[in-house]
């Protein structure tokens, strides 16, 4: 019971997702089927991985505007390298992950050693990364290995491969984040940088690690984009950046740092995707969709800010 109370915001989020999903299935012309589930999870996995990328930076009290550009760049790089023999493809995957990690590390260095505010630093690096992607592939094109794509975007005995992939990601992340010194240190730094420093945590290294991890997950998202679209497109970035921020907010990850989990990020991403699918099927004019997505986000933020009502010293309202 206390576990439920402590994870109240996550519980509410999951409940909201369940309701939205039920409505979505109810109005979907094909109802509950492997096909619908696979599409739904594939869409969710794209944004889910981007949201986990955003999660790592938000966890240490930052915000990353280069998530989208990094996805675009890694997608473009993948469209050149994910072809040929299994060995070549393996090499390609490693190279793509390395590119993403380096982008994240560059952000980390700008923030930690350059002492630039994360939002400004990642705005600048994001611009550069976008530029690189355009330089490598001015127009959408290229291709990736289709067998690999099929394996990762269809289903395995009726279970969407993307759902299994998300589950694996969550399982792999859980222990290192909650039970390793580095993972715990990320939460500590996000919760209170000063206290963490006083406790003897290596604040700078921990932040660098968080930004690098963010880059790695952006690369995973970029890889998965290549699996779904089978091409490289330098222009896919902007939507991912903003939606990844929206997803972590919906997923109960505090922008003030130190709170949240990859599960929250994925649930937030699935909620966003479900809402846009619902709008697609509900017959709302497509141009009105951003309004409703914004409305949902606003409601989520209002719910999250309820704690402020009990503040008894007005000065604390200004301290964040």
């Amino acid at each position, binding site marked *: 019971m206390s576990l439920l109370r402590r994870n109240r915001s996550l519980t509410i989020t999951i409940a909201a997702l369940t309701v939205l999903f039920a409505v979505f299935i109810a109005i979907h012309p094909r109802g509950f089927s492997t096909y619908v589930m696979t599409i739904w999870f594939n869409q969710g996995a794209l944004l889910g991985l981007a949201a986990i990328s955003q999660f790592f930076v938000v966890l240490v009290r930052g915000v990353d505007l280069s998530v989208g550009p990094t996805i675009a760049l890694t997608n473009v790089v993948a469209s050149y390298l994910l072809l040929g023999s299994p060995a070549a493809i393996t090499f390609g995957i490693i190279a793509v992950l390395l590119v993403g990690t380096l982008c994240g590390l560059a952000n980390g260095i700008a923030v930690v050693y350059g002492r630039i505010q994360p939002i400004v630093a990642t705005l600048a690096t994001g611009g550069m990364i976008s530029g690189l992607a355009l330089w490598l592939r001015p127009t959408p094109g290229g291709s990736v290995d289709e067998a690999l794509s099929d394996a990762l975007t269809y289903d395995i005995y009726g279970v969407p491969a993307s759902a299994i992939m998300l589950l694996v990601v969550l399982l792999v992340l859980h222990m*290192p984040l909650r039970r*390793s010194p580095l993972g715990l240190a990320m939460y*500590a730094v996000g919760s209170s940088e000063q*206290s963490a420093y006083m406790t*003897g945590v290596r604040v700078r290294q921990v932040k660098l690690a968080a930004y690098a991890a963010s880059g790695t997950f952006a690369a995973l998202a970029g890889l998965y984009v290549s699996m779904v679209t089978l091409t490289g497109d330098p222009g896919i970035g902007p939507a991912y950046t903003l939606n990844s921020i929206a997803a972590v907010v919906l997923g109960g990850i505090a922008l003030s740092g*130190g709170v949240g989990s990859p599960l929250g990020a994925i649930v937030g991403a699935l909620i966003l995707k479900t809402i846009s699918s619902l709008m697609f099927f509900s017959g709302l004019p497509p141009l009105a969709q951003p309004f409703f997505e914004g409305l949902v986000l606003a409601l989520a933020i209002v719910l999250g800010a309820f704690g402020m009502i009990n503040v008894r010293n007005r000065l604390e309202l200004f301290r964040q």
Partner: protein
Amino acid sequence: MAESLVRLKSVSKSYGGVPALTDVDFQCEAGLIHAILGENGAGKSTLMKLLAGVIQPDAGEILVSGKAARLTSPREATRHGMVCMFQELSLMPHLSVGDNIVISAPRTRLGLLHPAAYEQARAMLDRIGANGISLSARASELSLAERQLVEIAKALFRRPRLLILDEATSALTRKHIEIIFDVLRELKRQGVAILFISHRMHEVDAIADRISVFRNGRHIDTFNAGTRSPNEIINLMIGRSLEELFPARDASSDQNAPVVLNVSGLSWNGQLLDVSMHVRKGEIVGLGGLDGQGQQHLMHAVFGVLRGVSGRLEVNGRPLSGPSPSRTKQADIGLALVPEDRKTEGLILDMSIAKNLRLAALGRVPFGILDSDNESEARIRRLIERLSLTYGSLESPVATLSGGNQQKVVIAKWLALSPRCLLLMDPTRGIDLPTKAQIYRLLRELAREGLAVILQSTDYEELIHLCDRVYVFYGGRIVSKLTGDQLTPSALIAASMNLPNSASAHA
């Protein structure tokens, strides 16, 4: 004799030109509990921060077991066995109690934290009598006392050779303090050195083997516990008088002058308890006591910063209900507050001096349009002259001024409103002596002109020499009201520590 565990050799440290520690030689030995005494600003906290690696000395060196050590970060200091438990808490609010303790000295198996570490954290909490605190509770859910216990457990978890406790027990009950003192005595037997800072004399009496007194950033004396009487110790803490700093006091304030601000039965959130006080026209009233005993909250409550305040506030004989800063500063009420932290609450550092000076008066002008007859402009000019503000250009940012001149700008911006009652929160903290003297003179002059002044200060001299009456706070209550001849250093210090005042009875 064996080498001291820690030794400071002619260590100095200053902040922005204001010396915090001057040429300090100090040592502490393994297996001794060493108490550090001194007034606020005596340099105790600076000493602790140096040993904990939070700050580095400007001059001099620190030797650990006879070898020069560079304590460049808390992590480095911990590596040398120096662990500090600060009164500014070091807990991560969103982490569980167990994680908070374990992360301070992580042990791993297969790259993950060892489960045994959590068992040790549990054992450590039990040892200091914190059986009621669950390892899975979040630090932010704990009470202040519980957080202090977790801090202590966290410090002990790191197996210190030198354990520094800075007001570590200020929120704890007598029962818990006894348990912790027993643990400290046991550590002492195991050869751990303990530095103990407390304002509570009876705690120091109960546990210290050796006592060092600091004053104005200097190490005054070190002696074994029990060799000096409490009165002698208090005299060492007070030291020389600063009387030349203060303007002559007026014969006596007019006891029939109208009451400007009357507070009765004020309470807030368990941190202000049934506080009653008043200030008359032309009086300077002091709020004394150790830091954070409720004085600041009273100021905030009066100025309308706090929500949910109960009790009565009267200004000029009329009740004031539901105040807020934008209302209390209006001419009919006429309160002005010079806040504690001038850099964040008093000024907008990047704005020009001139703009900062006009800021408080903005709400007074209709529709926010600055007045055309230059009346307020002229008033500001007069104030700048009166405060002898030293500046390059009024258009340069306030951040370019020295601390003392910044404080003058804060005071001037409020005086521009011609308030009837001026509330000042520790206005001379970290300010050089000549500027202090100017501020004192100004306050006295303003009082003579009929302004009611409430001065909250942790500087005893200030309260004694400047104030007509002092209310002393302890644990959210006013425990003592001192006027006239009662206003002596020993009476004030005794009242701040909530001790019965034997010293002044004989004086």
